[in-house]
Structures are given as structure tokens and as C-alpha cells.
């Protein structure tokens, strides 16, 4: 009743092809974005911002990148952690070498560096497919981590072996470094991921995205009709690594403040992959939903016993958390294998009919 399209007529091709053709969608999404920019900095406390929202945004950007590669282009990749590390270390080197450079520009440049690296490691995808490719991307993961561990130039010869985000400001507001408030960092991360999502959404709706999906679904047939597999796959790797690189730089500069290579190891690659699969392969919204799931559910599980007044020993609590988390994943997949995004789509379809049954 509320979500009806009746009465909304399109008179131009452009309006017909809009990302949100239904007016209610546009209003709600617009309000949501504004609320996301305004509400948490004003209302949320330090814990929410620092431990929940900022990581959620950072991971969402990384999940977006991996979704482009795995969900849309069908190239399974387990090297996300490595590419994020490239972005982080590149950003560190750039900003320490050119302190006057705007940090947002530094992030984008480090994304470009990560994209270049991604292109190199994407070359095997031309010969190898499926799980074999995933394992091949692990070579990228382990090699890059080893490289950052081994070569002290990357950490500017620091004895500690870690990279630390130096104080940097944008428009006079500190966004990185120890004095940056979590509100400032939150808004920066949100802005970056919003722009990233808009760009990604348009990419996948256009020719590039369609060529990716063609390669994913039937790559030989795609090649026959003229989609060039080399360029398409490499483009996917490149753009995906760009996103992951920026996310990696955000991880260090906006979320953690400092990092050693252990922060980018294989478990991060798997974490981002879980987000993409749970959120929904091949869906922009799915990246956000998956990131939300992975970030919020463990926190919920950690705090739930307190909410009902149960005090468990920490070890038992963590173990039950793991079990419930694993069980939830399996439950999810049985109920909706296409992920949270599909659930959301079904909800919207039901809403269009509501309150009528059919």
C-alpha cells in the first residue's frame, strides 16, 4: 500500500534507468544517508563509534571490493588481506613522504598502488579458475605479508615494525592520528564508502559490470560474443584491489591507528569473504549487510549473556559465541543461500503487495 509504484510514470529514459526508480526508495535512501551522516556523530557514544560503526564502514568498503571481484566477476579471491595491506603500507609511505598531501588523496593514491599490485596477481586468473584460483590468490596474500614483514623500508625502519597513522587533518578537522575524534573518523569513513558504493553501483549497471557478469556466468560464451576475458578479468582485479587498498588504508588510519602485518593476515581475507557470501554475492547492498552481520553478531553474542543477567566465564562465552556464530551461518545458508541481500529483496517485494497477500 505504501510501497506502490502506481501513479509514478517515467517520461525519459534517464529517469527509467535510475538506480532507485521508485520514489519511496529515493526518499528512504536519501533520509537514511542523511541520518547516517548526522545521527551517529551526535548520538552514538565512543564505544559504538570506535568498536562498531567505524569497523563496519571499513569492512563494508573491503567487502564491496571483494564483491565486485567474486560476486560480479566470479573470480574467487583469498588475497583480500594482502591487498588491504598494500593499501595501508602505501598510504603510510605516501603520507610520511609527502605530509602536506591531503589524506583523502593519499587514500586514493594508495588504492591505485593496490590496484597495480592486484593487476599483477590477477594474471593467473586467465589460466586458472574456481577454487584453484582462490588458492593461487593465497600466494599473493602470503607473499605480500612476508614482503611487508621482511623489508624495513615499508615501516620507515621503525624498530617496532609497525606503522602508525600520523596526525592528519581535512578542512582543519583532525581525521587521523591520536587526537582525531571518532566522530571525524566516522564521517570520513562514511563519506568514502558512500562514494565507493555509488561508483560501484554504476559500474555494475553499466557495460563493465555486464561484461563481468558475462564472464562469471559463461566465460567461454562471453568470449565468443566479444567480451575480452583478459581485459575484463584484469579490470575486475584492478578495481577490486583499489577498493581493498583504500579499505586497508582506512583500517590503519581511521580505525586502528597503528598496525603490524598480523592485522592483515589470512584471517582477514576469510573474514571479508564471509561478509560477501553472507551478505549476498553480486549485490552492492549485500556487502553492507554482510559487514554489518559479521561485525554486530559477535558483539551481540558477547553482550547477550549480560543482557539476560547470565554471567559466564569468558572462555566459555567465547566458545559459545563461536558455536552460535558457526551455527547461524549454517542456518542462514539453509534458509536463504543467496544471502542477506536476497532476504532484503524478498522483503521489499512483499512490501509492495502489503497489506494484500498477493
Amino acid at each position, binding site marked *: 500500500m505504501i510501497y506502490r509504484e502506481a501513479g509514478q510514470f517515467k517520461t525519459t529514459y534517464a529517469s527509467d534507468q535510475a538506480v532507485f526508480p521508485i520514489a519511496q526508495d529515493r526518499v528512504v535512501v536519501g533520509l537514511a544517508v542523511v541520518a547516517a551522516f548526522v545521527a551517529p556523530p551526535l548520538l552514538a557514544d565512543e564505544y559504538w563509534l570506535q568498536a562498531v560503526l567505524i569497523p563496519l564502514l571499513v569492512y563494508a568498503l573491503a567487502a564491496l571490493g571483494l564483491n565486485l571481484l567474486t560476486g560480479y566477476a566470479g573470480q574467487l579471491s583469498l588475497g583480500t588481506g594482502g591487498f588491504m595491506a598494500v593499501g595501508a603500507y602505501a598510504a603510510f609511505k605516501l603520507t610520511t613522504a609527502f605530509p602536506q598531501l591531503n589524506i583523502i588523496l593519499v587514500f586514493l593514491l594508495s588504492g591505485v598502488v593496490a590496484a597495480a599490485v592486484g593487476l599483477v596477481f590477477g594474471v593467473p586468473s586467465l589460466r586458472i579458475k574456481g577454487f584453484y584460483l582462490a588458492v593461487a590468490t593465497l600466494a599473493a596474500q602470503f607473499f605480500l605479508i612476508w614482503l611487508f614483514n621482511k623489508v624495513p623500508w615499508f615501516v620507515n625502519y621503525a624498530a617496532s615494525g609497525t606503522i602508525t597513522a600520523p596526525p592528519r587533518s581535512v578542512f582543519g578537522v583532525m581525521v587521523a592520528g591520536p587526537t582525531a575524534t571518532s566522530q571525524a573518523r566516522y564521517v570520513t569513513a562514511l563519506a568514502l564508502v558512500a562514494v565507493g558504493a555509488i561508483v560501484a553501483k554504476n559500474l555494475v549497471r553499466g557495460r563493465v559490470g555486464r561484461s563481468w557478469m558475462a564472464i562469471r556466468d559463461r566465460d567461454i560464451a562471453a568470449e565468443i560474443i566479444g567480451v575480452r576475458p583478459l581485459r575484463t578479468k584484469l579490470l575486475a582485479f584492478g578495481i577490486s584491489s583499489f577498493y581493498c587498498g583504500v579499505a586497508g588504508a582506512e583500517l590503519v588510519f581511521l580505525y586502528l591507528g597503528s598496525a603490524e602485518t598480523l592485522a592483515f593476515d589470512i584471517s582477514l581475507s576469510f573474514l571479508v569473504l564471509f561478509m560477501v557470501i553472507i551478505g549476498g554475492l553480486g549485490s552492492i547492498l549485500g556487502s553492507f549487510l554482510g559487514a554489518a552481520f559479521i561485525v554486530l553478531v559477535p558483539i551481540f553474542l558477547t553482550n547477550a549473556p549480560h543482557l539476560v543477567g547470565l554471567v559466564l566465564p569468558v572462555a566459555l562465552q567465547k566458545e559459545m559465541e563461536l558455536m552460535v556464530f558457526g551455527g547461524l551461518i549454517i542456518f542462514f545458508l539453509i534458509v536463504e543461500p543467496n544471502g542477506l541481500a536476497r*532476504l532484503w529483496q524478498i522483503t521489499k517485494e512483499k512490501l509492495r503487495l502489503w497489506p494484500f497477500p498477493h
Partner: protein
Amino acid sequence: MRSRTVLIGMLAAALVAGPLLAAAAAQPKEMFIPLLVYRTGAYAPSGIPIANGFVDYFTLLNERDGGINGVRVVWEECETQYDTKQGVECYERLKSKNPVLVNPYSTGITYQLIPKASVDKVVVFSMGYGNTAAADGRWFPWVFSFPTTYWSQASAVIRYIGQQEGGLDKLKGKKIVHVFHNSPYGKEANTTLETLARQLGFELTLLAVDHPGQEQKSTWLQVRRINPDWVFMSGWGVMNQVAVKEAAAIGLKMDHFIGNWWSANDSDVVPAGDGAKGYKGATFHAPGTAFKVHQDIVKFVYDKGKGGGGKKEDMGTPLYNRGVVNAMLSAEAIRTAMTKYGNKALTGEQVRWGFENLNLTEPRLDQLGMKGFMHPIKVTCEDHEGNGPILVQQWDGKRWTLVSDWIAPMREVVRPKIEAAAIEEGKKLGYTERDCAKEK
């Protein structure tokens, strides 16, 4: 279909209710100390005894003395699984309870918390680990790493080896191998060892073992080929167990194999069985339960059924004792602060002063029931390390026993490096150097 609705409902609930826990603040006559522990995950064998030691000592203080000068200690454990991100989450969640100090027990988490410490006014006590450069209190007023650091440890171990060989001059031409975990933690000792190798003329070989270190055959084959006189190890987690096993398998003389203070715990030698006999380790407190403080813990904690989660028999392992020492030092620092600010629940600033002016003397250690267990420590504004000496312990198949007296580190080598590193690290964070003279 219904399950889908259930799922959506659950998700909405999780989204909203997740971090909604409102923590209750500690009462006025209590002080809150968060305990970042790892009782599960890959590092649990090391994390469990440390956590137990902590909890037991604080329980002892509450039960035997009614707290620290009458102020009860309240703590909450938070599981980090040694993961930096979980550590950050724990810290942020427990910050609302007004903690006065935090023991991160992980180098990665320590690095995260160092910048926040001065902003949140919480002392970061990274005892014997963390950022070695922070031992210079002029740059890092809120970070303390006494009684000693990795660089001091490396120099002290070389001094011990020198003692065993009949003098530091006898080290010329000897072969020493450093097997280390391929991470910033593992590499800590390398620069000090390289400097000493140049100064004293021994042949140093550095062998990195990649995380996690489950498979070390190639490393130990190389060790066998080098046939060193001494092997020093900076390991962590499963790397320790495998290393000890492999060393025994290649027939290394175990009494010439010294692990650092994170590589010499019961959990590291038990899997190797008899092969581990003779393995040595560095430490900065004694192992075992032959001290009055342990008897008190049995009497006031275990006999009353308030043990921290471990069994009485697990008391006395090196890492359990480490937890006890850590808790004791925290308590003594708070007590020191109380001499200036009064016997009440203190703020972070006040506790910081206490840490910086801690003077733990031999008579006081005796009072605490720790005679021979710990070395006296004096912390100053410039020196947050305490320049503490180490001990060497040896595994005889059943327990660790001390085989050396207190060995001083080579301050003249280590301190200049710490000061240089502190300037570099401090500038990176945008700090300015304090003038200790002005603050007296």
C-alpha cells in the same frame, strides 16, 4: 517462509541490541581494572596461566587485606584471543567503567592503546613486552614496561652466555643463533644482538620462523648445519613447542638453548617430553611455589574456593607467576599513588604518578611474601623500564628451577638505543619531550 521472518527479526534485534550493554561503574570504594586475557584460541596455553595468576593475586588482596589500603579491586576479564581488533573492542567497552590502568598482554594491542592512553588517562602497563621505545618516560609518560625490556633481556642473555663460557671475551668466534618469530615482537632482540655481535666478536645467525611456526624442519636443519654454541629463541605460541621438539630431535645440547621469557613456560616443554630436559629460559621472577605469597594464595583463595579458574596444581608455572607479578606491581603502584593522594579510589592521573614513583625495595618484597621471587625495582620519570635484571631457569623434566643469580642487562648498550627509538616513535605520534627536572 516463517523461518525467513524469524531470521529478519533476529537480525534486527542483533543490530539494535548488540552493543547496548550499559556497564555499571565501580563504586567509590573500589577501583576497576580491566583484564584483557586470551583463554581461547591459538595462544590460550600461554594466556590461561597469566589470567589465573592475575585473578588469584587480586582475589588475595581483597580477601586477605580487604583490598589495597582498604579499597577493593574490581576486575572484569575480556577475551581478546590475542587479536588486536578484539582487544580494541574490549578496551572501548570497558572504558566506561573508569579503569585506571590496562594490561594489554599483546604487543599489537599495546600499540593500539598507547596513543589512547594519554587521551583517555589510562595507564598502559606492558610489563616486559610492548613498545620498547616507550621505556623512555620522557616521551611516553603513560606507558610503563618495567621491570625490563626485550633489548635489555637480549643483552643480559649474552652476558649469561659469557658467564657460562668463562668471560665475555671468550665469546669471540663463538656461534650464536637467534631463532625468532617472524613478527615485530620476534625481531625485537635482533638489533641489540647485532650490536653486541660486532662489539664482542661472536658470529650471529638470525633465523626467522614464519607465523605460526607449526613446521620448522628447515630452520632446525640449518641450525644443525651451523652447529652453534648457543641458541637463543624469541618464540610465541605453537612455535615454542615445535622448536623445542625439533631441537631435541636434531640432538642440540638443550642446556645451550635459551628461550626468552615468552618461550619458557610449562606448555612449551611438555609436548616434547624427555627431549626438553635441560632447556633453559630467561625470566624476571622466580618460578615455582616456594614463596610465602603462594602459600597465602592457597590459604586465602583456593581454600576458600575462589580460584581464578585454574587448579591449585597449576600454580607456580612461569606464566602463572608472571600474572601474579603483574598484579602485584599494579597494586604496589596504586599503593604508591595512595601515599600521595590518599586511601581512596584514584583517578588515572594519580595512578600514573604512582607508577612513575614506584620504589619497590627488598624489605617491601619480603613483606609481600616475595623474597627472592622478584628483584627490587625503582621507576623514574626518564626510566620506565626499571633496568631490571633477569634470571635463567632450567627445565628438568618436571619443573623449572633457577640456575643463575640476577644478571644485569648491559645498560650502556641498551639505553642509548632506547632513547633514540623513543625520540623517533614519540615524534611520529606528535608528542613532545617532557622535562623531568621541571616536574620534580
